[in-house]
């Protein structure tokens, strides 16, 4: 039986009282990593090893992947999935998997929200290809995030991959990693990638102060995926697989546009899809930035709440000295655009998860504001 360390029990050295003695830190950390306070009852689900409480210390303990772990080949109980429009995370690529225990499937009660059953698990791997134009040249896995639903509550944690790419370790306090890669134009890019602390998760993954998943909304999942068995709509696959309730009506579900694929939606709809995914997790009437009264959900219809001629509430220097969140026709006079273009910590949006400019999205939003068919705001 494997050992598991609950999140409470996994600690690094916490007593700086002993700071003078920290020169043996390496050995101590090794001992700590090997150490856990108690054995807990394991819970084997469909070949996976998911502890009922807390989290394993090492990613390999869950048994998510067959063969070499770094290849991320999922075992049969997991399904890979993609999203139509995904959150920008400093140009990382992501490989996602979902696990839903046998028996009770997920439901889509109101056309978009996916209600997951007890025991569900979402797995999201973040990596950089060495060369974006040639995936065969390999990649660097950075972190693997888990979202787990137990006793009706979601919790989140992240595992940081080692340099050898053989294992990933639970790390709750956040850290940074210097990464460089060749982008699709052949330009060498660098980023000081931020792995979030477990508390950072709740900044975005929060609705009415409770942790929630963000990506897997029905409209965003409603797309094809190239499974090993062939191409198939993801939600149909989920339904036939028993991940989604058999009576789910899929024909009436709409699809969220792919922000950078004009064949999937109008400029307005693609811009709104991008803002929905990248902003509305905080900027919605129940989110952590609701005090700003800037609401960027895809379904928001009031131009004022989207930011049109809206003065800021608590932007500080994030206003960039500009007066309105969106000045129709004038991206360079719009705070929303300014904050997408800024990399200063106190100005950039999203506040966390982005340290470099998402240049392609900036082009989209510039175009969207320029072509916005609404009167200028005026005022001196």
């Amino acid at each position, binding site marked *: 039986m494997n050992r598991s360390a609950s999140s409470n029990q996994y*600690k690094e*050295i*916490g007593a*700086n009282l002993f700071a003078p003695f920290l020169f043996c830190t390496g050995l101590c950390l090794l001992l700590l990593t090997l150490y856990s306070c108690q054995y807990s009852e394991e819970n084997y689900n469909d070949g996976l090893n998911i502890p009922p409480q807390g989290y394993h210390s090492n990613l390999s303990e869950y048994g998510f992947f067959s063969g070499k772990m770094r290849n991320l080949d999922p075992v049969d109980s997991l399904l890979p999935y993609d999203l139509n429009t995904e959150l920008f995370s400093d140009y990382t690529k992501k490989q996602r998997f979902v696990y839903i225990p046998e028996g009770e499937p997920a439901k889509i009660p109101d056309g978009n929200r996916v209600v997951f059953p007890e025991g569900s698990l979402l797995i999201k791997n973040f990596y950089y290809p060495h060369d974006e134009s040639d995936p065969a040249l390999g990649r660097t896995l950075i972190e693997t995030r888990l979202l787990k639903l137990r006793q009706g509550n979601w919790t989140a944690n992240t595992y940081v991959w080692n340099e050898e790419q053989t294992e990933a370790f639970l790390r709750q306090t956040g850290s940074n990693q210097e990464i460089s890669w060749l982008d699709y134009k052949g330009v060498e890019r660098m980023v000081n990638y931020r792995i979030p602390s477990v508390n*950072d998760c709740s900044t975005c993954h929060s609705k009415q*102060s409770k942790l929630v998943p963000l990506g897997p909304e029905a409209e965003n999942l409603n797309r094809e995926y190239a499974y090993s068995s062939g191409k198939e709509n993801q939600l149909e696959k989920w339904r036939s697989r028993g991940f989604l309730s058999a009576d789910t009506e899929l024909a009436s579900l709409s699809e969220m546009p792919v922000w950078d694929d004009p064949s999937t939606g109008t400029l307005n709809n693609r811009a709104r899809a991008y803002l929905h995914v990248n902003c509305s997790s905080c900027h919605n009437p129940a989110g952590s930035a609701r*005090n700003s009264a800037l609401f960027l959900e895809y379904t928001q219809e009031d131009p004022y709440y989207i930011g049109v001629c809206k003065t800021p509430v608590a932007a500080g220097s994030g206003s960039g000295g500009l007066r309105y969140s969106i000045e129709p026709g004038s991206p360079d006079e719009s705070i929303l655009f300014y904050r997408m273009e800024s990399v200063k*910590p106190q100005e950039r949006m999203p506040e966390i998860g982005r340290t470099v400019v998402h240049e392609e999205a900036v082009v989209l939003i510039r175009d969207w504001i320029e072509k916005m068919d609404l009167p200028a705001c005026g005022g001196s």
Partner: protein
Amino acid sequence: MIFSLFGLLVPFIFLLSGCNGNNSVSQNGEPDLILPGPDAQQIIQQAFIDAEEGDVIRFGEGTFELTATITLNNKTGVTLKGSGRDETVFSFSGQTDGSDGLLISNSSGIIVQDLTISDTPGDGLKVRDTDGIVIYRVGAVWSGEPSSENGAYGIYPVLSSNVMIDESYAYGASDAGIYVGQSDRVIVRNSLAEGNVAGIEIENTTNADVYGNTVTDNTGGIMVFDLPWLSVSGSHVRVFNNVVQHNGRVNFAPAGNIVAQVPAGTGILVMSTNNVEVFDNEIEENNVIGTGVFSINSMIELGELPSNVQMDESYNTNNVYIHGNSYSRSNIYVSPEDQNTIGNLLTQSFGENPIPDIMLDGFLSGDANESGDICVQNNIGSGFVNLNIPFSFPDNISFDSSPHDCSLEPLPEVQVEIPVYN
């Protein structure tokens, strides 16, 4: 060699104590103390993640060099205690991730005391979605001469309830030193705010008592504002027994923010809110607006807001009772090029004459000859002016205070439910 052996033993002791499920109490029963050091960021963050109800996380003396926001999330009954406001400093001058210094969210019954947060790119201490928060002897400061590059808010509870800010200090914020936004049941007392754009700002907040504070050398001293268009409107704010003096600093707020509209030389400003009582304050040398009652409608009338914003009677300020305050002033102003539009309008309207200390903009609900439920009584050393901005400003400025010689029912004392602190 001796040290090495010691170093090997100590972690084992710590591991044993860790199994008791409470790492904040060491073997001898004394709480652990986190000291400054290269790993402080990780150690503090882990301690916050692991904290359990009743824990006191203590910080030693010295400067903690931190590079990312430290967050306390979803906790009940935790105390974060430094060794003194001047002794324990969390410095964020090298911050690269997140813009707040210390962020407390989705929690209840939290005490932060005896430490200072300095030089955050964004806000110093932000408290969001929290019920029951004590901020006691806490500093939020930016080094050097105050600058628009500084973060917006020093001490910043928002979307919270049962808030106590006591004996705290804010310096250098490019918006408000102590800012309470969209919260309910709040006390801000016995604190010092200096060198900020706004010293203390109570915005869209209900049931707040602001007393015993010293607010000096800011652009404006104490602001009680409602921004319309938000889901929460403020009401029932008492501002009393404060010393509000020498607030004449050149406004350094980034444009676009509402405090950029505050003239250099403002003492207490009440705007677009309801049920405010301002009494028994010492208000000295705030030379443009000693105590003002204004409305967002004035900003619209004077062209300081977008032309698509329509005036609305609901933006008027109602039920303000200004009484028992003492005033003194000179006629020293910042130069016109250092003053903002509204400040220049006001100083120019009075020419060589002193500007009366108590000022209404004239957007009153009901008949303008009536009080509009703005009552001004028993103040010492103050003049009075109604700018009558809606009536062809500046042609109908009135110095007649008699329509406002009335009294209102005193507002009740605010009760907060907070953990006991000392």
